[in-house]
């Protein structure tokens, strides 16, 4: 086998499609019963505007990818868990119903996606009661298994999945009390604040969080309250809310347990350092999607998967790929950023998140303005920049985002 893909979400499927189109032998390993990843349960629309030039729901986007891949049985192995990667001997150890199988691919693509942050990580006082779910788990219950988590729900965290679940649970007949967000701004896209909360008269409490969880076995209620600018609870603002369900949408964590011990890791992205070919610091291992950094749009994840698929295939065919020549370094106001390295041999897309909201701004590469934004940019909305001109760039490019008057 030439190219092995780990993970069958949007990035992995796109990588497999592209590698297969390049004419190499490709295999995709999926931990779940079928591929599609989170697309399977994201029945709302808004997917595919860049890639397919139309607005699709998650399952539609997923089925488009299946059709693009063609014979699924030829490429996909479901119910496979990857136990370990030996990056020196280039071996991938897997566990499935067939037992332990060791693959020796010429190139590997990591498309392991992200995991939800759990409410426990917030250290809220109270017992660990039944009735507390992450947004993704609630989404799977409702959209795949046809089960409602309860009757009356508060959402904690205004990330996109939280906002979408507020609407979804309301449509399915739950009493959705509101959404609390600890930050002064919503965590998800404004589009979702409008169509998920405002349209359904669901309140959004900014600078608010859950102070305490009540109940012994089953959730009985929560105390919410206001926080100050340092995110400390303000005494006297407490309010008791009776709910039997608490849904947490408090962030996603890239999943890199399999490679984080031997690849260069970007501590801000919480994913592998990659270049414009989606290569990690280990030359036969590529990566794409939410395991590299958390994205907003599946379209971007798909595009990264395609790039990884193409160059992993070329690498597997024995082609000598160009070496990294330039490096991006974070300057002022730059949060999530990828790629961190590039070869300067092809135009590529760079993604970044500003550290704070700015109404007018410019992106600067080592003192030179390369893009101006006349509209508001926010940490919750990833910016994509087309980079086509490298001639005058130094080997180490300092990236900054500045507010302009």
């Amino acid at each position, binding site marked *: 086998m030439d190219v092995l893909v780990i993970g069958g979400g949007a990035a992995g499927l796109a990588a497999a499609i592209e590698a297969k189109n390049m004419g190499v032998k490709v295999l995709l390993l999926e931990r779940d019963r079928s591929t599609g990843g989170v697309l399977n349960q994201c*029945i*709302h*629309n*808004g997917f595919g*505007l860049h890639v397919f030039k139309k*607005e*699709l*729901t*998650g*399952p*539609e986007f997923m*089925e488009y990818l299946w059709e693009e891949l063609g014979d699924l049985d030829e490429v996909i192995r479901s119910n496979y868990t990857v136990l370990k990667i030996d990056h020196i001997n280039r071996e991938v150890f897997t566990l499935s119903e067939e037992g332990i199988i060791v693959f020796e691919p010429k190139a590997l693509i990591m498309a392991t996606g992200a995991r939800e942050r759990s409410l426990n990580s917030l250290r809220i006082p109270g017992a660990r009661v039944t009735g507390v779910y992450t947004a993704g788990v609630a989404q799977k219950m*409702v*959209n*795949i*298994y*046809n089960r409602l988590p309860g009757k009356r729900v508060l959402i904690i965290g205004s990330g996109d999945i939280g906002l979408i679940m507020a609407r979804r649970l309301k*449509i*399915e*007949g739950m009493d959705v009390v509101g959404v609390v967000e600890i930050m002064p701004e919503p965590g998800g*896209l*404004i*589009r979702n*604040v*409008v*169509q998920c909360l405002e*349209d359904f008269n669901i309140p959004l409490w900014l600078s608010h969080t859950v102070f305490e969880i009540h109940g012994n076995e089953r959730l009985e209620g929560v105390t919410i309250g206001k926080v100050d600018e340092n995110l400390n609870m303000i005494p006297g603002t407490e309010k008791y809310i009776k709910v039997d369900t608490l849904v947490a949408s408090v962030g996603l964590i890239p999943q890199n347990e399999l490679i984080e011990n031997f690849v260069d890791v970007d501590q801000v992205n919480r994913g592998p350092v990659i270049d414009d070919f989606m290569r990690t610091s280990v030359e036969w291992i590529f990566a794409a999607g939410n395991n590299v950094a958390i994205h*907003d*749009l599946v379209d971007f994840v798909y595009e990264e998967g395609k790039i990884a698929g193409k160059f992993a295939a070329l690498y597997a065919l024995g082609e000598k790929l160009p070496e990294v020549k330039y490096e991006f370094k974070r300057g002022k106001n730059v949060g999530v950023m990828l790629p961190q390295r590039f070869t300067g041999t092809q135009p590529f897309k760079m993604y970044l998140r500003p550290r704070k909201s700015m109404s007018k701004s410019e992106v600067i590469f080592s003192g030179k303005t390369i893009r101006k934004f006349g*509209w*508001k940019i926010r940490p919750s*909305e990833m910016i994509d920049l087309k980079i086509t001109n490298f001639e005058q760039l130094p080997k180490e490019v300092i990236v900054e985002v500045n507010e302009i008057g």
Partner: protein
Amino acid sequence: MDKKMTCISCPIGCELTVQLDENGKILKIEGNRCPRGVEYATHEIIDPKRVLTISVKVENGVMELASAKTDKPVPKNRLNEIIDFIKKLKIEAPIKRGDVIVEDILGTGANLVVTRTVKKRN
């Protein structure tokens, strides 16, 4: 009078400013990065509409639910009525993505379309 709104035609979410005269007629729309912003703002002032995404119960399928959507935006003020109607529906597997379950749902001009293929249970 100026009315501010966020365009929800795509995930970019342009912040639009709509200038209205005293009769509520649109004079100018600003802040959009593509023509869909103008279309959205116009609709939002005259007759706000949304695409509804929802699930429909499936009998004898490998899944209990099929995801579905209206193939056109439907009036926002009729969403609850349409949701109640869809909740009473049951469809029989197998179904294919793109199958129309209800034509011209409650006279809105939009069809209810399945967005997921659900095979028949063996």
